[in-house]
């Protein structure tokens, strides 16, 4: 899921400058799961906004804020409250915020910072394991992604900063290449070490991304 975290009050106050009436939007999917934009957080935001002297005209938690049509439909159901507001404050990832901004010309303000596509270890502890590079090498790297887990995204083995299996960028974390090496050894196969991996095709990461799955 998409891991996100609430922006600092200071930054929110700046974005909300002059906006006395606010409509709140949360997201029932990722932002609920990582407790940045679920019902509870929407209520907490409402209280905080009121404490700054603002009115909350209404709120909605959309099932999946990234679902453009659904987001638009849910907003229409709250049309009066939305229209009464000076701005919509959206507690969802950047994709969710943009479902809103493509559904209304009202001022839309994002309340979260979107961090990464994360696996959950336990609540509050998330690990980025895939950065959606469009050209997956996992089958050769014993299921450990060097594009994401190596601080430099190297494809042909560790850099000179490897030290006792730890990463130069953070001695608390394992060097991804060390993990790959160890697991391939246990699997008794050379995997990615058998060849020189050519430069990555970043052309596969099309920006802006548009994708239709052919059936």
């Amino acid at each position, binding site marked *: 899921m998409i891991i996100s975290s609430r922006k600092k009050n200071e930054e929110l106050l700046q974005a909300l400058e002059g906006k006395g009436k606010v409509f709140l939007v949360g997201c029932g999917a990722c932002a609920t799961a990582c407790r940045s934009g679920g019902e509870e957080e929407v209520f907490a935001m409402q209280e905080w906004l009121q404490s700054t002297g603002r009115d909350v005209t209404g709120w909605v938690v959309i099932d999946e804020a990234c679902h453009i049509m659904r987001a638009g439909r849910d907003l229409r159901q709250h049309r009066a409250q939305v229209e009464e507001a000076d701005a919509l404050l959206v507690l969802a990832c950047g994709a969710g915020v943009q479902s809103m901004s493509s559904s209304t010309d009202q001022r839309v303000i994002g309340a979260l910072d979107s961090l990464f596509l994360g696996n959950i270890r336990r609540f509050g502890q998330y690990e980025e394991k895939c950065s959606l590079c469009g050209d997956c090498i996992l089958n050769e790297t014993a299921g450990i992604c060097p594009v994401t887990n190596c*601080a*430099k*995204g*190297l*494809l*042909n*083995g*560790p*850099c*000179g*900063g*490897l*030290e*006792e*299996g730890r990463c*130069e*960028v953070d001695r608390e974390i394992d060097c991804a*290449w*060390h993990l790959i*090496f160890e697991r391939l050894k246990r699997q008794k196969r050379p995997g990615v*070490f058998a060849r*020189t*991996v*050519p*430069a*990555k095709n*970043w052309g596969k990461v099309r920006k802006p991304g548009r994708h239709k799955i052919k059936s």
Partner: protein
Amino acid sequence: MSHLSEQLASGRFVVTAEVAPPKGIDLQEALSCAEGFDGITAVNVTDNQGANMRMSPLALAALLVRRGIEPVLQLTCRDRNRMALQSDLLGAAALGVENILLLSGDHARFGDHPAARPVFDLDSVQLLQVVRGLEEGHDMAGRPLRGAPHFFAGAAVSPEAEPFELMFQKCSKKAAVGARFFQTQAVFDPHRLERFMEAARPLGVPVLAGILLLKSARMARFLNEKIPGVRVPAHLVERLEASSHPLEEGVAIARDMTACARTLCAGVHLMTLGMEERIPEILQG
């Protein structure tokens, strides 16, 4: 043919040193440092070393060429994508720079621009392949070049990194894709250097041992903490700590490592960090 490649081919013990481009455009210090070297075959020009932003090493390397000093241009993958790397390489060749040292580069997080987006579009192995392609007359996209460059391309290795086998597989890859010389990360442990050389000898790539002049125990501790891939063993830190003339002790340590390199390696790369006048003493080893 560069002097560096000729001397390595002839089997003469080679000595290289390094100079950092200035932060700013005042070149006086860098140039007088490079001009002051004595008995040195080539001078490395570092590339935003430690991820600290400085003048382009290509500019300083070209200025050294004009002054008759042979540079080794360091080029990292941290700050340039594949297009920038290729155009800098072509530019370097056009300016008379032949020796290059291709590096991944320290992560931007260590330097003075920690908010920079690190590039790492290529890794050092891929960059070596790119260099070979340019020499063969085509770019990475396979397009022909009008005038192919000629380089003497080297790569970095870290003989003391653990696990050894993992570090060494990368080293073999570098040899396989055409590294013509290896320059090691600063080494302090003769046994580890020996182990590395035993493994590396069959690759047939000459090795320059990195010798770093330690000035004090404080500096040694700083290196251990802050500089990736550099490990000063505890007994050397203690030796520096105990000495009333730590710099003299540091020179002695560097001299011993140089003596060790003479028996094992094709040469040394000296990192003296502002203490260039001590080089003759270090080379007595």
